[in-house]
């Protein structure tokens, strides 16, 4: 069964700093997604990664996928307060027609 693990689960960082969130998954999959969730809100799609070596960037966020290592990273560059949210990675399950989520990384960016 597909398992998705994120780390860290909690991340407090200062504005202007860089950091990386990691997402590991347990079985073969070629599709990985990153979502953002603000408190009390729904999930907003950030990135869709569909192949090994895929890299996507939007503003201060950059996501990459290594399907051989079963690893995706979400890199934050020069963090700003507006990036404070919970970030989830999710992986398509090839066994089932669904997507499994990591537990989420709660990011707080402090001035």
């Amino acid at each position, binding site marked *: 069964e597909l398992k998705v693990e994120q780390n860290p689960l909690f991340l407090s960082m200062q504005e202007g700093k860089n950091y990386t969130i990691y997402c590991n998954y347990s079985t073969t999959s070629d599709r990985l*997604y990153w979502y953002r969730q603000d408190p009390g809100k729904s*999930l907003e799609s950030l990135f869709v990664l569909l192949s090994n070596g895929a890299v996507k960037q939007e503003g201060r966020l950059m996501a990459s996928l290594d399907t051989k290592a079963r690893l995706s990273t979400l890199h934050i560059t020069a963090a700003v307060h507006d990036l404070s949210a919970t970030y*989830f990675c999710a992986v398509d399950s090839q066994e*089932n*027609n*669904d997507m499994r*989520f*990591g537990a*989420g990384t709660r990011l707080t960016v402090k001035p």
Partner: protein
Amino acid sequence: NAGVTQTPKFRILKIGQSMTLQCAQDMNHNYMYWYRQDPGMGLKLIYYSVGAGITDKGEVPNGYNVSRSTTEDFPLRLELAAPSQTSVYFCASSQGYGYTFGSGTRLTVV
């Protein structure tokens, strides 16, 4: 476009009561899903559907039922509500890569 619409947004149920969470999408997506999200946790799949008339269990189906009589609608039924079903419920739809999520239903069972 409305996307994925969930109703109600909030609901308080007493133990043993039943209710139906509604989900509708206007994107003609074949795939629809119900997830629950407990406080501080990720999403767990309850049920999903790959098309009208076809449903299947996810990770945590106990205590729930679904039906998919049309492409647009995918209601989730709670029978005999229990405190353990207190959660935020998200419906999602897909046609290919990635999901579109509804705004969620916050359910409290007391």
